[in-house]
């Protein structure tokens, strides 16, 4: 029994470390082909004129994701014309979170008037490749030749509760830096968020 306990303990420790995998700033990001709420399939390669992307892992129900819905819309409004459109991805397993079905996502997208794709990461586990652990979780990518290079990972800003009290608009600052030909500083931030729900 004791041996089994130690094996399990080892597994517990390893699995919590393995979960931290994913991209770091400077890594090349993968493209994907995911279903949008309008029924179309969306890949980053479809956006020929984009200079990069704001990939946001989000969902319908998480209070933090909800707190940022409008701020994400604002980012798209300001930065899509500058070459950095928002691509929202919902990776929650529908069996665990029925509220995150494509149908419910379509409803949310229409209610809010999303101006960006809201994609269902159903079986591709794109969030695992990126290393997204929670919602919202942002990855800013920049095109470099044929590659997509990760330039910023983390939070949208430093106050989920009250957008008027934000003193560090991390994401907007990162995008402004890229547009000015600089590297974002900071290029990595953290925020509390809801775990992306999947079956083990």
């Amino acid at each position, binding site marked *: 029994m004791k041996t089994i*306990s*130690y094996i*399990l*303990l080892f597994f*517990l*420790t390893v*699995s*919590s470390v393995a*979960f*931290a995998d994913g991209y770091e700033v400077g890594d090349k990001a993968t493209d994907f082909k995911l279903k949008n709420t309008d029924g179309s399939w969306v890949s980053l390669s479809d956006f020929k004129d984009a200079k990069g992307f704001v990939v946001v892992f989000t969902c319908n129900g*998480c*209070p933090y994701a909800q707190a940022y819905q409008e701020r994400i819309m604002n980012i798209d409004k300001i930065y899509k014309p500058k070459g950095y459109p928002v691509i929202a991805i919902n990776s929650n397993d529908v069996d*665990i*979170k029925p509220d995150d079905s494509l149908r419910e996502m379509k409803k949310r997208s229409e209610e809010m008037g999303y101006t960006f794709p809201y994609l269902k990461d159903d079986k591709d586990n794109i969030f695992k490749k990126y290393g997204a*652990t*929670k919602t919202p*979780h942002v990855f800013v990518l920049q095109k470099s030749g044929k590659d997509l290079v990760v330039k910023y990972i*983390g*939070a949208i800003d*430093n*106050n*989920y*509760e*009250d957008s008027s*009290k934000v*003193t*560090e608009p*991390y994401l907007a600052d990162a995008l402004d830096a890229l547009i000015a030909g600089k590297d974002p500083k900071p290029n990595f*931030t*953290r*925020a*509390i*968020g*809801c*775990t*992306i*729900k999947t079956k083990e």
Partner: protein
Amino acid sequence: MVAGLMSLLLLPSRLSSQPDVLTFDEFEPYLHHQSDTLYVLNFWATWCTPCVKEIPALEKIREEYSNKNLRVILVSLDFPKQIESRLIPFLGQYSIHSEVIVLNDPDSNRWIEKVDPDWSGSIPATLIYHKDSREFYERSFTYDELKIVINSKINEL
């Protein structure tokens, strides 16, 4: 008259179940207690489904180890406006007797790495520590899994 008396009787227990609401600076000492106790700090919120699912396991652990040097602290990240409407009713409904505090500090990028350098910020997350020996789990636990971890640590005390 009877109602008035009842409310007087009920008042103290209601007040004592009101969790403290702390900024990170006020909360930080909880991460560095030096007493000969195994601290289990669970970061959670009532709106977080996997968190709510593991709360009974934590509560059971607290009960089972009540004669050991183990202290379970449930660190709620519920929003302040939901303390009355959601958190307190939840604690009553699930008969939670563990210590509960609310950590309310929206500038989380400033403090997440002070809890653990590897924490991305998702919940549930659990910090288990005894003095300077620390382990951090950004995941959820079943009762059995938690018990294995606790047993391996409590034997070191």
